[in-house]
C-alpha cells in the first residue's frame, strides 16, 4: 500500500514538473506535422507545375519533408524540456544508418526499366509514368485513368518503353481485290507516306505485297515517324488511303462467299451462281 502511494506520489511530482511541457511538446508535434504535410503538398504541386515530369521533384520534396520533420521533433523536444543534444545525436545516428543501408542495398534493388514521364506498355496497359514509389508505379492511361501497377509485377512482365527510341514504325496492312490495279495501289500508298511531313525520309517508306490470299491481295505499308506523332499520323494515313483508293477506283477486298443454287437432282451441276464480285 505504501509502495503504491509512493509511486502515485512520484507520478504526481513528474506531472507537476514536466506535464505542461510534455503536453506542449505533443501539441507542437501534432501541429507541426499537420503544417509539414500541407507545406510538402504545396511544394510538390509547385515543383510539378514548374518542372513537369521531373524525376527530381519527388526526391526534393521528400528531402524537404524529412528536414522539416527533424525541425518539428527538435522543437517539440525543446518545448517538452527534454535535452536537445542527445536527441540530435540519436537523429544523426538514425540518418547515417539509413543512408548506409540505402548505399549498401541500392545495387541489389532492381531498377525499373523506365523513368517518370516515359510512355510505357506494361501488362497490356499503355500510359505515361507519373510516379514511382518503392512498392508501385503510378501510370496515367491515354483515356485518363490513373493506374497503380505493383513494381513486382512490372519486374516479372515484359515492358515496352517508347521513350528510348525517338521514332516508331507505322504498319498498315490492307487488302485489295484481285481486279484492282496493284501497281497503282502501291504507288498511292508510297506517295501518301512520302508527302506527309511527319514521315521520316530515312528509313524510306516502303510498300510490300504481303500475301495472295483466297479473297485479296494483301499490301503492307511501312514508314517511320516520331514517337509522339505515331497515332495521329497513322490515323491520317488511313483516312487518306481510303479516300485516295476511292478516287482511283481501287477497291478494298471483303470476305466473300460464292453461293450455288441447286434446283435439280444431286447429279445436276450448278444452275445459278451468285457472285458478290458481280
Amino acid at each position, binding site marked *: 500500500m505504501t509502495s503504491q502511494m509512493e509511486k502515485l506520489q512520484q507520478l504526481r511530482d513528474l506531472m507537476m514538473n514536466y506535464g505542461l511541457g510534455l503536453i506542449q511538446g505533443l501539441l507542437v508535434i501534432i501541429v507541426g506535422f499537420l503544417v509539414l504535410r500541407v507545406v510538402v503538398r504545396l511544394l510538390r504541386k509547385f515543383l510539378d507545375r514548374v518542372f513537369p515530369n521531373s524525376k527530381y521533384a519527388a526526391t526534393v520534396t521528400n528531402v524537404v519533408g524529412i528536414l522539416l520533420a527533424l525541425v518539428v521533433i527538435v522543437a517539440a523536444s525543446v518545448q517538452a524540456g527534454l535535452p536537445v543534444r542527445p536527441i540530435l545525436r540519436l537523429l544523426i545516428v538514425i540518418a547515417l544508418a539509413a543512408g548506409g543501408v540505402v548505399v549498401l542495398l541500392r545495387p541489389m534493388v532492381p531498377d525499373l526499366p523506365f523513368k517518370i514521364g516515359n510512355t510505357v506498355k506494361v501488362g497490356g496497359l499503355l500510359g505515361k509514368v507519373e510516379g514511382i514509389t518503392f512498392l508501385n508505379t503510378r501510370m496515367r492511361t491515354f483515356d485518363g485513368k490513373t493506374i497503380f501497377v505493383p513494381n513486382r509485377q512490372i519486374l516479372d512482365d515484359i515492358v515496352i518503353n517508347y521513350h528510348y527510341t525517338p521514332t516508331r514504325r507505322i504498319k498498315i496492312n490492307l487488302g485489295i481485290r484481285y481486279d484492282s490495279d496493284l501497281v497503282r495501289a502501291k504507288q498511292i500508298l*508510297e*506517295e*501518301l507516306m*512520302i*508527302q*506527309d*511531313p*511527319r*514521315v521520316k*525520309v530515312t528509313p*524510306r517508306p516502303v510498300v510490300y505485297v504481303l500475301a495472295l490470299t483466297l479473297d485479296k491481295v494483301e499490301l503492307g505499308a511501312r514508314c517511320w515517324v516520331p514517337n509522339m*506523332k505515331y497515332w*495521329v*499520323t497513322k*490515323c*491520317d494515313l488511313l*483516312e*487518306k488511303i481510303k*479516300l*485516295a483508293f476511292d*478516287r482511283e477506283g481501287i477497291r478494298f477486298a471483303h470476305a466473300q462467299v460464292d453461293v450455288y443454287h441447286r434446283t435439280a437432282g444431286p447429279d445436276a451441276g450448278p444452275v445459278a451462281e451468285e457472285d458478290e464480285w458481280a
Partner: protein
Amino acid sequence: MKLTEALKTIDQGWVRKYEGYRVRYQRFEDGQLVTGHSPVPEEPPLDSEVSARRLAWKLWKATGGGGDGELVNLVVVDENDDPVPSYVTGKVEVFNRREG
C-alpha cells in the same frame, strides 16, 4: 548513276514532301480583300494535311454567314504559299470562294 544518286534524284523529282500546311484566307476590310494565314507565318505550320483541311472547313463554317468577320477563299497552302491539292478530291479546294 549510282544507286544513292538515283534515290536522290527520285526524292527531288518524284513526290514532293511537304514541310507543313497553313490555311490561307481573305477577308474584306474597307472594301478590299486582305489576305491572312492560320497559323500565322511566325508560328510553326501544321504537320497534318487532314488537320489543316479541317481547320479551313471549320473556319468557313464558323464565319461564312456573310457578317463582318466573314472569311473567304479559304485554301490549304504549303510552305511556299502554294495551294495543296486535296487528298479527298485530288484538286485544289477553295472554301467560300469569292471574287475580289
